């Protein structure tokens, strides 16, 4: 497995351009997700990781990770990773003829795979597909959907127990949207014999699905890394500004050691992301899944520590809605809770070892 520890020149440029765009944003608010989406599509963020022949920019998941990290730094709420990088890539692999529409942002797909209590037992799909008069109808419940999709890629169990992937357009989908505690848009889908288009079935569907999940695990980790970097930077600055007892709080050794520990964790997260990306670039699905699980677990652990301590070192101001740092903590808390939690990902790592 080849690993890339240093950003390429193109990635450095890409990073700069996303960072410039995000620099003026208020991290406490979601902003206009439609506007963001259109901008990102125009910039090619949705296609950064795709080969040129598929309408992409000829990059890799590592390029997507650079974008995701910067989006996380700015706490962008729009589902670029979930829709643009994960679901769109899945859809494209299945329906390459739709490349242009997808690349232009004309469709904003999202993967509706999780079910309540699935807890990253990813093949434990209980939503059922029935063939009724030549068409497919799905019944079941899908949870933890992120963003405001125009199209849902839904996994379901076929009559023969194989996995199937279906598409339902958002207007036909009984999607119940809600605000998440970290200020994003979430959704649940309650399917009751809901008509759906079959995209792919059997082993190819399962493979495509598992690859999309591993991509989500890793690229969401990149986003989380960005969020924790921002919380870290903010805390470091605060230690060099805030005074108590007549001195900068950054002069207290206990707080100095804490920021050192935060940095150590941040560096571990940064490093394991390289491993996770190496897995995505590799050709062994089990190894990819194992490394994605490790990445997710380690980044979630580091993130909870870094962002939790970022609040702690800020003191009172850190627990207010008005100050940014708590918003990073909420994003990381939600990140850590999803996909079964870090402990479940450690279990997956052990199972796959």
């Amino acid at each position: 497995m080849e690993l890339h520890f240093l950003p390429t020149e193109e990635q450095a440029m890409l990073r700069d351009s996303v960072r410039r765009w995000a620099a003026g944003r208020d991290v406490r608010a979601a902003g206009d997700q439609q506007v963001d989406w259109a901008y990102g599509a125009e910039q090619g963020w949705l296609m950064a990781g795709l080969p040129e022949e598929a309408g992409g920019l000829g990059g890799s998941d590592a390029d997507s990770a650079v974008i995701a990290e910067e989006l996380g730094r700015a706490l962008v709420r729009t589902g670029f990773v979930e829709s643009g990088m994960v679901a769109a890539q899945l859809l494209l692999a299945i329906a390459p003829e739709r490349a242009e529409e997808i690349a232009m942002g004309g469709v904003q797909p999202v993967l509706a795979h999780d079910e309540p209590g699935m807890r990253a037992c990813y093949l434990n799909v209980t939503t059922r597909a029935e063939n009724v008069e030549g068409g497919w109808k799905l019944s079941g419940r899908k949870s933890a959907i992120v963003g405001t999709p125009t199209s849902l890629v839904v996994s379901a169990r076929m009559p023969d127990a194989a996995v199937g992937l279906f598409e339902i357009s958002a207007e036909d989908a009984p999607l119940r949207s809600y605000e998440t505690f970290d200020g994003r848009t979430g959704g649940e889908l309650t399917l009751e014999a809901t008509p759906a288009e079959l995209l792919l079935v059997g082993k190819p569907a399962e493979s495509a699905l598992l690859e999309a999940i591993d991509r989500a695990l890793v690229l969401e980790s990149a986003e989380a890394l960005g969020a924790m970097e921002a919380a870290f930077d903010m805390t470091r600055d605060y230690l060099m500004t805030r005074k108590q007892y007549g001195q900068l709080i950054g002069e207290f050794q206990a707080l100095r050691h804490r920021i050192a520990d935060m940095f150590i964790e941040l560096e571990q997260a940064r490093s394991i992301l390289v491993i996770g990306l190496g897995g995505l670039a590799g050709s062994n699905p089990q190894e990819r899944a194992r490394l994605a699980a490790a990445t997710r677990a380690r980044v979630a652990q580091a993130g909870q520590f870094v962002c939790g301590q970022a609040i702690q070192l800020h003191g009172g101001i850190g627990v207010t809605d008005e100050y940014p740092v708590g918003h990073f903590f909420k994003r990381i808390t939600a990140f850590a809770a999803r996909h079964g939690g870090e402990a479940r990902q450690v279990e997956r790592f052990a199972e796959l070892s």
Partner: protein
Amino acid sequence: MGALGDEEFRAEVRAFIAAELPSDMASRTLLGYHPHKPDVEFWTAKLDKRGWAALNWPVEYGGTGWSITKRHIFDEECYLAGCPAVNPQAFHLVGPIIYAIGNEAQKNFFLPKIRSGEHFWAQGFSEPNAGSDLAALQTRAVREDDEYIVNGQKIWTSEAQYCDWVFCLVRTSTEGRKQAGISFLLVDLKAPGITIRPIIGIEGGHVLNEVFFEDVRVPVANRIGEENEGWTYAKQLLGAERTFSAVVPRCKGLAVRTRAIASRDGSKGRGKLIDDPHFARRLAQLEIELMAHEATLARVVAEEEAGVNQHSPTPSILKVKGTELLQKLGALAIEALGDSAIPDYPEADYLLDPPNDAPGAPAAYGVVSDFLYHRSATIYGGANEVQRNIIAAQLLRA
């Protein structure tokens, strides 16, 4: 675990609660949202009628006169049953200062109104530049005849928006050490010149406030004790409430709730999360830690009653350990919820009239909100870093 014995008393408390506490109030409290003022008023009045409102006060001031052990049992039963908590600043902080230091007029006027729930109190200590370093406070009180003219700002004032009075540390002199020159004033929150600005917490709730004082006139009669001696009284107050800051009942409630969350069918694949040995053992680990923490509280209580080991830094230990356990349990509860933790569950909607198509799961209501709110637990009341300073200072004094 009934670590404190006295099962008869415990049964009496249970019976009282069962008879008096409305079930909607109990469920509202158990979900862990911030106190709902009408509930607190209702319950304080009920307790007062029974003579159980001021459980930590001496009998002569209308308190129960109970041993610390009994108070702990009472607190625990109330917490687990979902009784609304009485206004803590009034009963645990300013009340004891008024009966210990206040004059007769102050005792006669304020104490009954606290007991009955007529007066809710806020605490005006912290300022924007006086957090951990509280003695650096700058709100000025200048004496003019029989009044002080107060100017300045307080911050992190819990529940000021529905309190009636605030007790403040104010600077009455700039001479000498910064701890000297501080006085302790009782201020009517309806007095002209006071402005309250809400501070919304990361959990989305409104508990905290900024309180601005602009030429607020406070009668000298509302000063506690001597002028410039306020720091001494405040220290007394901050050290007194060992049991309160140990958050034992809250941690026990959260452990029980976490176990319930993890015991839902289908909480892990087609099984239950609690049947995952790794999860079960991490929860057991916290239960053991909680058991040791509770026993530490009980031991401190016993030592206090016996008047031994008074110079041990145990109040700080109880605060550090309790608040850190609370945060660990909260994180485990969220892990147990998994995806169900993600929706933002706004208080009013879900509690009073949850919609039929509500997303998420009722098991999750209030868990994340409570977890987020309690990030502050390791910060307020003397940040845990300050508590560790205190512990070390006591251990390492020559």
